[in-house]
């Protein structure tokens, strides 16, 4: 049974994600490591490095972390403002699961961006 949703995620709580070694550039990771606009992560509060995602990761991966406080600031692309946010998203086989996602400003409200159809198919 999935636990209750626990929002908001505190700004300083770390969100973990497995990262392949080929996607590391110094102290940062490359875009190829994440699938914008929705990126799966594991909340520190619920996984403590023991979530299914992190436990089952392949040997040539490491674990990267980010917090809500260190997400990129809102950005104006073309005529549209976009922002990053994080949201609790527990799943049955991974109760630590959370999303980092992009939303865009439409009619004075931010609307969550969805994956493209091509990405959903794959």
């Amino acid at each position: 049974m999935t636990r209750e949703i626990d929002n908001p995620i505190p700004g300083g709580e770390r969100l973990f994600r497995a990262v392949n070694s080929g996607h590391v550039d110094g102290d940062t990771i490359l875009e190829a490591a994440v699938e914008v606009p929705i990126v799966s992560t594991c909340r520190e509060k619920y996984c403590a490095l023991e979530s299914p995602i992190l436990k089952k990761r392949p040997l040539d991966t490491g674990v990267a972390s980010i917090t809500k406080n260190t997400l990129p600031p809102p950005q104006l692309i073309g005529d549209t403002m976009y922002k990053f946010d994080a949201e609790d998203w527990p799943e049955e086989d991974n109760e630590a699961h959370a999303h980092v996602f992009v939303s865009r400003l439409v009619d004075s409200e931010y609307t969550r961006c969805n994956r493209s159809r091509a990405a959903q198919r794959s």
Partner: protein
Amino acid sequence: MRLASIARETNLQNPSFVPPRAFGALAKILDEERNNFENKYTGGKPIATEYTVYSGGVQHVFLTLQGEPTDAVFLTYSENLHSADLTVVDSNGTWKLSGAELLAEISVNSLRSLSANWDGNGSPPPSRQSLEVAKKALYRANKLMLCPDRVVADSGGGVVLYYFSTDKMTGGRSSKYASLNIGSDGNVAAAEIDRRTKKNEVWEVSLDLFDETLARLHTFVR
């Protein structure tokens, strides 16, 4: 025999251009192959005959094995022209391939071997379309001596070729990098990222513009 099996998968006849760095990788493979021959026939003692012929500015290196005239590796290259042509002959037949094609094949083969969840996040392996396009891009890159610094799968079933500047910022990250992003559907986009000025550019790339795009990305980080 690894090299022969790679050669067997390809069917190329024309020599082409290989950058010096890539040529180093090719030479290493040839060394391994030569050791395999020697181990096979003499228990490790060097029996290969090697002779070099210079012709029209091109250096030809022939490695043959005494008593086994049908087993040979011929490497023809020119350090100045950065060209390479490889011929493998063994008891199963003869295969020719260019260095550029060989290197593209090796890079793509390593991506082809990825299985689902290769990154620990449940990501799919690179799609067949993305691998085919990546192979074409890598072939062009090798041929033009614009070998990418890194070739990786992305989390959406695509392939990315990266070029990094040697100028590093705090934390070791590159101050500039450029990428050719091949989606799982085979569509291609290019990106130039400047972390110092924060000026980024992203654009779609048609398959007939690989040469110009690769040259631009390579120049951007240099």
